[in-house]
């Protein structure tokens, strides 16, 4: 077990260290996402009823587009001197590489969420300290990362990757976005856990299935 985790942890440690030093992912992502929801909040200002209904949609729009920027960047450290090839040539399994990258993607996007949710709460005057809201957000982010890691690795080697990533990625995350937005809206408007359990189930199954598919297919997207 320890030997299985060692490469995964190494990848996570390396990504964190790179991020702390280069500040390429989290800072620009937070900036972009906050500006996006700021603009929406401005446009919807004065209609508090409307904003209650659309608040979580706006949060997830900001998060989705910010997330795409993050996904474009997440493999850039592997690209600079082709560290990805270094990993493929090592004795680490592709599954381990996938999990390592998945965890760091998930961590980065979660940190962005952590910063965005309070901003969101202030702008839309919404109580954000609800456990269910955080649970939904984390599950949504996990699904987002599971698919994002695969497509980010795939588009890394493509021509015009910056445009191909959203084209491949967006149709696939639609269920995650629908589930996250719909259940967050329910929770914000005072819904209980029993009303959203079907969404949570959908998210959990989605996450589990796509992590499995991602782990299996990762070797096909990283082989050159």
């Amino acid at each position, binding site marked *: 077990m320890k030997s299985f985790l060692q490469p995964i942890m190494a990848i996570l440690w390396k990504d964190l260290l790179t991020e702390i030093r280069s500040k390429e992912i989290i800072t620009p992502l937070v900036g972009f996402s906050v500006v996006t929801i700021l603009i929406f909040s401005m446009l919807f200002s004065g209609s508090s009823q409307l904003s209650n209904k659309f608040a979580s949609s706006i949060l997830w729009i900001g998060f989705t587009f910010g997330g795409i920027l993050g996904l474009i960047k997440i493999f850039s450290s592997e690209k600079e001197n082709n560290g990805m090839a270094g990993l493929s040539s090592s004795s680490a399994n592709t599954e381990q590489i996938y999990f390592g990258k998945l965890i760091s993607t998930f961590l980065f996007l979660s940190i962005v969420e952590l910063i965005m949710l309070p901003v969101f709460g202030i702008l839309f005057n919404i109580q954000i300290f609800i456990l269910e809201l955080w649970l939904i957000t984390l599950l949504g982010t996990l699904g987002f990362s599971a*698919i994002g890691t*695969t497509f980010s690795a*795939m588009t890394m*080697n*493509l*021509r*015009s990757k910056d445009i*191909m990533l959203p*084209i*491949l990625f*967006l*149709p*696939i995350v*639609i*269920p995650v976005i*629908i*589930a996250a937005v*719909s259940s967050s809206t*329910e929770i914000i408007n005072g819904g209980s856990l029993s009303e959203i359990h*079907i*969404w949570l189930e*959908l998210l959990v199954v*989605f996450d589990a*299935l*796509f992590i499995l*598919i991602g782990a299996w*297919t990762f070797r*096909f*997207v990283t*082989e*050159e």
Partner: protein
Amino acid sequence: MTVTMYLIFIWVPTDDVLGISQRIFYIHVPMGILGLMAFPIVFICSTTYLITKKDTMDSIAYSAAEIGALFLTIALITGMLWSKPSWGVWWTWSPQPTLTLVSWLVYIAYLMLRAYSPRGSQGAKYAAVLGIIGSVNSIFVYLAAKIWRDVHPEAVVGPLAENDSLDSSMRIGLLIALLAFSLLFTYLITLRFSTRKTEQKIERLQYEIN
């Protein structure tokens, strides 16, 4: 095909409420169903390709995705043409149209990916991975759209809600149309498949000349 067209346009009785526009239904429904049927084909062939690396499997998946995209395009257009006179709107976000549109986007993404990735095995592997993810995803899209509508029931207007009210000759017409379009679907896939085989053969011959 001619028989089907005759049935669709002449033999089947005109719908009482919806009028003549309802006839587009016999094209729309088979196109939608068959367009989505391409997903299982893409899924099975892509998985097999990744395991066995047989080019044939990749070619079938590619052909199915192309024809799937074509059929769904027609389904979307006919759907809109039918929806406007029937419900007064071009588009509704009920589960079937949502699934059709998202699936269409996935097929387009698949075809674009093939165009933008290097020729040969690498592009094929990328496409196969997208094919697998896209096919599995379509189930989730449908579920999500369905739960969504269940939560907000005021918006439910789906073509399938109409199915119960079909009279028997309409049902027969639909079945025959479905059968005819299935044949067309299979024929087109085989056609694309054999074209692709020939392309590959030409490529291989070019290699040998060099």
